[in-house]
C-alpha cells in the first residue's frame, strides 16, 4: 500500500488573506501539513494566530486564497458548493466549544441529523446514532434533550454526531473550552480513542495540557507554523499500519 494513501487531510502551501490593501490580513501564510488516518494533531496558538481559519479551511467552510486543501485525496476546490456540503455531511465531523446541539432535538435525533440530511433512512440513521452514543459511553441518554444534560454529556453527544457514519476526519475547535478539567480529559480520551480506531483528528486548542494528547503539536504564530513537536510523521504512517 502506498503510504501516502493513508493521508486524510492535506493542506499544501495554504495562504488565506482577508480584505485587501491597507486592511489586508494574512490569516494563514503558506501553511502545509498532513494528518494521517489514526493520527491526532493538535494546533496551538494565541488568538489571531490563524488556528480557527485553518480548521474552517480543513472543513471546506472557507477556501484558501492560494494553495490546496485535500480531504482523502480530493482537492476541495474541485468539488463545488454542493460537493463540499456533501463532504461535510458524510466525511467530516465537527466538535465545537459550545457543543452546537439543536435544543429541540433529543440526543439520538441530534446525532442522526447529518445522516438523515444526507438521505439515509430515518430508521438506519437512528440505529447508527444509537451505536455512536454507545461508543461515547452515554447510550442511556439517547432520548434526553440537550437542556437536561451536563456540559460533558452534551459534548459527548456532539462527538457522537461528529463520528456517526464512519467519518474519517474529525475537526475539533476548543472542544474542552467550556468543561472542567476532569470532564475535559474524558472528552480528550474519547477523541484519542476515535483516532486510535482509525480516524484522523485535528484539535485546535490553546491549552497545552490538552494538546499533549495529540501525536503531533503544531504551533501557529501570525498564520505561520513556527514549530512542530511529537512523533515523526514516518513513524505515524508505520504505526497506522498495525
Amino acid at each position, binding site marked *: 500500500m502506498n503510504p501516502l494513501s493513508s493521508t486524510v487531510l492535506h493542506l499544501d502551501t495554504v495562504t488565506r488573506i482577508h480584505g485587501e490593501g491597507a486592511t489586508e490580513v494574512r490569516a494563514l501564510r503558506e501553511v502545509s501539513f498532513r494528518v494521517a488516518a489514526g493520527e491526532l494533531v493538535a494546533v496551538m496558538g*494565541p488568538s489571531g494566530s490563524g488556528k480557527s481559519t485553518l480548521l474552517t479551511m480543513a472543513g471546506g467552510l472557507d477556501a484558501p486564497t492560494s494553495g490546496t486543501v485535500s480531504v482523502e485525496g480530493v482537492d476541495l476546490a474541485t468539488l463545488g458548493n454542493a460537493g463540499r456540503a456533501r463532504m461535510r455531511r458524510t466525511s467530516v465531523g465537527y466538535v465545537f466549544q459550545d457543543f452546537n446541539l439543536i435544543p429541540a432535538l433529543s440526543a439520538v435525533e441530534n446525532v442522526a441529523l447529518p445522516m438523515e440530511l444526507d438521505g439515509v433512512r430515518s430508521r438506519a440513521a437512528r440505529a447508527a446514532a444509537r451505536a455512536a452514543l454507545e461508543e461515547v459511553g452515554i447510550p442511556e441518554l439517547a432520548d434526553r434533550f440537550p437542556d437536561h444534560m451536563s456540559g460533558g454529556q452534551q459534548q459527548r453527544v456532539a462527538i457522537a454526531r461528529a463520528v456517526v457514519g464512519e467519518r474519517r476526519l474529525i475537526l475539533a475547535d476548543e472542544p474542552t473550552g467550556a468543561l472542567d478539567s476532569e470532564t475535559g480529559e474524558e472528552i480528550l*480520551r474519547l477523541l484519542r480513542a476515535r483516532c486510535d480506531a482509525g480516524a484522523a483528528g485535528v484539535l485546535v486548542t490553546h491549552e497545552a*495540557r490538552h494538546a499533549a494528547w495529540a501525536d503531533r503539536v503544531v504551533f501557529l504564530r501570525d498564520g505561520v507554523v513556527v514549530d512542530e513537536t511529537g512523533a515523526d510523521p514516518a513513524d505515524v504512517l508505520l504505526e497506522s499500519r498495525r
Partner: protein
Amino acid sequence: MSVKQALLALLEQGPRYGYQLRTEFEQRTGSTWPLNVGQVYTTLTRLERDGLVEADGADGEGHVVYRVTDAGRDEVAAWFTTPVARTQPPRDELAIKLALAVTTPGVDVGTVIQQQRSATMAALQDYTRLKREGDLDLAWGLVLDSLVFSAEAEIRWLDHCEARLRRAALERPTPVATNVETPEVAR
C-alpha cells in the same frame, strides 16, 4: 525533598525495613524521585538519633525493622497539617536563563523560548502517554497530574514571555526580542 517525613509517614502504617520503605515510596510516587537505599538508611539513622523511630529487632532474614515512636507520629501529623513553604522559591533554571537571555546582547530570545516550548511540550506528551497507557493507582496518578500541570504552566509562562517581548519590541526603537546586529551600537 522531604524524604524524612515521607519515610515517617510510611512507618506510621506499620514497621518496615529500609528496602521495603524505598519500594513503597517509589510505588506511590511512580519512581518520579528515585531514592537509593543508602539514602534511606542514612535517613533512618538520623530519625533514630532524633528519637522519631526505633529499631525493632530483625526479621527472619536479618533485615533491621524500624517502627515509629510517639514523637515520630507527632512529626507526621505536623507535616500533613502544615502547608509547604512557598516563601523561598526553588531555583528555577529556566527563569534564570530567560532573565539573563533578555539582558545579554546577541541572544536570540525568541529561539530560546521556542526551543524550550517544544521540549516542554514533548515532556508533556510523554506524561500524557503514561496517563493513557493504563490504570494508574490514585497516588501515582496524582503525582503524574502534578507534572502535567507544571509543564503546562511552564508553556503558558513561555507564551506569556513571548507576547511580552513582542510588545516590548514594538514599543522600543531597538528590538529586544530579536538578534541585534551590532551589539556595540546597542550599548
